[in-house]
C-alpha cells in the first residue's frame, strides 16, 4: 500500500514495542496464576521492559533508566504486598520481587554501558 497523502507524514508509523507489551501481560498472568516462577518473572520483565521502551520511544520520558527504576519500584511494592501481608502468596510475591530486582539491575546496566543520545533541546 502506498502512503496516504497528507496523513501520518510526520509520525512514526511503526514501533516494535506494542507486540511485546501485549505478550508480556498474558505470560505474566499465566505465571502468577498457576505459580510458574520463570513465566511470572519473564513475563513481567517483558511487560515492564517494553513499557519502558515505549515510554522512551514516544518521548514521554527522557531516560530509560528512570522509567525502569520506577517500574521496578512498582513491582517491589506489589511483590511485597503478596509476600508480607495477609494475602500470603509467598512464591508469587517473590517472583514479582525477583522481576523487580532484575529490572533494577537492567536499568543500572543500561545507564552505565549504553550511551543514550539525549535530545538537545
Amino acid at each position, binding site marked *: 500500500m502506498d*502512503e496516504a497523502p497528507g496523513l501520518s507524514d510526520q509520525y512514526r508509523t511503526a514501533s516494535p514495542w506494542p507486540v*511485546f507489551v501485549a505478550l508480556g501481560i*498474558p505470560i505474566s498472568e499465566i505465571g502468577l496464576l498457576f505459580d510458574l*516462577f520463570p513465566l511470572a518473572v519473564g513475563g513481567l520483565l517483558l511487560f515492564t521492559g517494553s513499557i519502558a521502551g515505549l515510554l522512551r*520511544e514516544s*518521548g514521554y520520558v527522557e531516560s530509560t533508566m528512570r522509567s525502569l527504576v520506577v517500574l521496578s519500584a512498582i513491582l517491589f511494592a506489589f511483590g511485597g504486598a503478596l509476600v508480607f501481608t495477609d494475602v500470603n502468596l509467598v512464591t508469587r510475591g517473590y517472583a514479582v520481587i525477583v522481576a523487580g530486582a532484575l529490572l533494577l539491575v537492567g536499568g543500572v546496566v543500561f545507564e552505565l554501558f549504553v550511551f543514550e543520545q539525549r535530545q538537545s533541546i
Partner: protein
Amino acid sequence: MEVNGQLVLTVLMGLFLIAVAAWLARVENWRSYTPLAGAGAVGSTEQYVSEEKPSGVIRWLTTVDHKDIGILYGAYGLIAFVVGGLMVVVMRLELADPASTLISNTFYNSLLTSHGITMLFLFGTPIIAAFSNYFIPLLIGADDMAFPRINAIAFWLLPPAALLIWAGFFPIPDVIPAQTAWTMYTPLSAGVGSGNQMNAGVDLMLLGLHLSGVSATMGAINFIATIFTERNEKVSWANLDIFSWTILTQSGLILFAFPLLGSAILMLLLDRNFDTMFFAVEGGAILWQHLFWFFGHPEVYILVLPPMGLVSLILPRFAGRRLFGFKFVVYSTLAIGVLSFGVWAHHMFATGMDPRLRASFMAVSMAIAIPSAVKTFNWITTMWNGKIRLTTPMLFCIGFVSNFIIGGVTGVFLASIPVDLVLHDTYYVVGHFHYIVMGAIAFAGFAGLYYWFPIYTGRMYQTTLGKWHFWLSMVGTNLTFFVMVLLGYGGMPRRYATYLPEFATLHQIATVGALILFVAQVIFVWNFVQSWLEGPKVEDGDPWDLADDDLVTSEWHWFDRKLQTAIADGGEEEAELATDGGERIDDSQSTSDVSSDGGDPVAETDATSDE
C-alpha cells in the same frame, strides 16, 4: 520432576527473552532516537521507522498506522468468524438427530461455550474495531488515532486472548475446554461440585476473556480521545458522521461495562484458585448473575450500535437520499446507550428476584424498544421514494433492517415478564438473539466489508458472488433462526446436545439452514480472497457514483486523492506503469522512490525527534 520442569521452563523463558532482546536490538536502534546523526543513511535499517514502513512481516508486527491495524483487526475477526462458524456447523450436524451420535455431550458443551465467546469477543468486537480503526480517522479528518501505540497494544492482546480461550481444544495434557457457556454462571464456573470445571482450561479461558476485555477498553479510550480531540476543524459535533457517533457511544458503553466484567472475572479466578468466597457463599450465584449481566446487556448494544451506524451510513448512499431524521438517529443512539445500563435484570426474571424490581426492569426493557424503532422507521423512511440501487452492500443493509425487526420484536415479547417466564431458557431466546447477532450485526459487517472493499483493497469484488452470498445468507439465517423461535414455542430447552424425538423435524430444518449459511460463507471467503488478489483494479475514486446524488463522504475523497497521488508519484504497485518508457523498476528502487517523494526526509526526522 518438579524441579526439572521449572528448569526447562526457566531456560525456555530465558532463551525467549534473549531472542526478543536480540530482535529488538536489530530493528530498533537503542542508542539513538535522533536519526539526524545518520542523515546519510536514508533507507538503512536503523531508520526504519521514520519515513516509511518496514517491509514484510515486520511491517505488520510493528505497525502503529490506524489503517494497517484496521486490516489486522479485520483479518483477525474473519479468522475467528471461521473458527466460531465451523464450531457451530459441528454442533448443528450433531443436532440433526435426537441422540448423541456425532460428538459427546461434553464436547458439545465445550463447542457451545467456545462458539459463543468466539463470536461475541473474538469476531464481533474486533470486526467493529476493524471498521472504526480504518475509517474513523478518515471520516473525521484526523491524522491517526490519538494514541497509535495503545492502538497496536490493544490489537496485539487479542491473538493471545484467542489462544487462551481455545487452549482447552489444543492437545495439552490435563487441560480440557471450558463447558460453562459464555455466561459462566457460578457455582458451575467456580468449579464447585463433582463436575470437571475446576480444570485449568476454564482458568485459561477466563484469562483470555479478561485480556480481550482489556483490549476492548484500551480501544474504547482511544476512540473517545480521538473523536473528542483529533477532529479536523471542519468537523463539528453538528456535522459529525453517524458512524462516529455510534462508535463514540459504544466506546462509552465499553468504558463502563468491560472493566466490570474484568473485575468479576478476576473475582471468579480468585474463587477458583485462591480460596476466596465471592461467589461460593449464599447469594453468590445471584451476585455473579447481576455482575455478569450488568456487563452483558450493555455488551449487546456495544455489538449492535456500530453496525446500526454502518447501516445508517451506507443505506442512504444507495437510496439516493440523505439519512432521514439524522438528529433523531443520533438521539436514539444516545438514548439506547443510556438505557442499556438499566435493563440487565431482564435476563434474570426467572431467578426469583423481587417482583417490584422485576417490573421496573420490564418497563425499561420495553422502553428501549422506542429508540430502536425510531432508527428502524428512519431507515425505512430513508428508502421510501428513494432511488434504490440493490448493490450487495445495500442488500445487506436491507437484510439488516428486516432481520433486526424480527429479532427486535421477539425481544419485546421476551421483555414481558409473563412471556419470559414461559419462554426463558428455550430455543426462542436462541432464535431471538441470533436474529440480532447473525441477521443484523454480521449482515451490517458484510455491508461494510463490501461497501469499502475498493478502499482497503484497491480492487472490486465479484458482484454476482456477492449477491449469491447475500441471498444464501438471508435464506439460511431466516430458516435457521425462525425455526428456533418455533422450537422455543414448542418448549425445546436450549444448550442440550440431545432432545426428544418430537423436535427432530424442526431441528433438521435448522441444520439445513445452518448448512446453507455455511455454503454462503464459503462463497464469501472465496470472493473476498480471490477478488483481493486478482479483482479488477478500481481507478475511479468514487466507484459507487455517490457524487451523482451529492452523497460522497470524506473517506472517498481521501481514496480519490490517494488514487491520484499514487499515479502521479509512481507509488509501488503501479511503478512500472508510471515510469515513462523506462525500464522496470526493481523493488528496492521503487521503495526509495516513495520515501524520497515525500519531500525532505531529514526535515521530517527532525520533526519526529523534536516531539
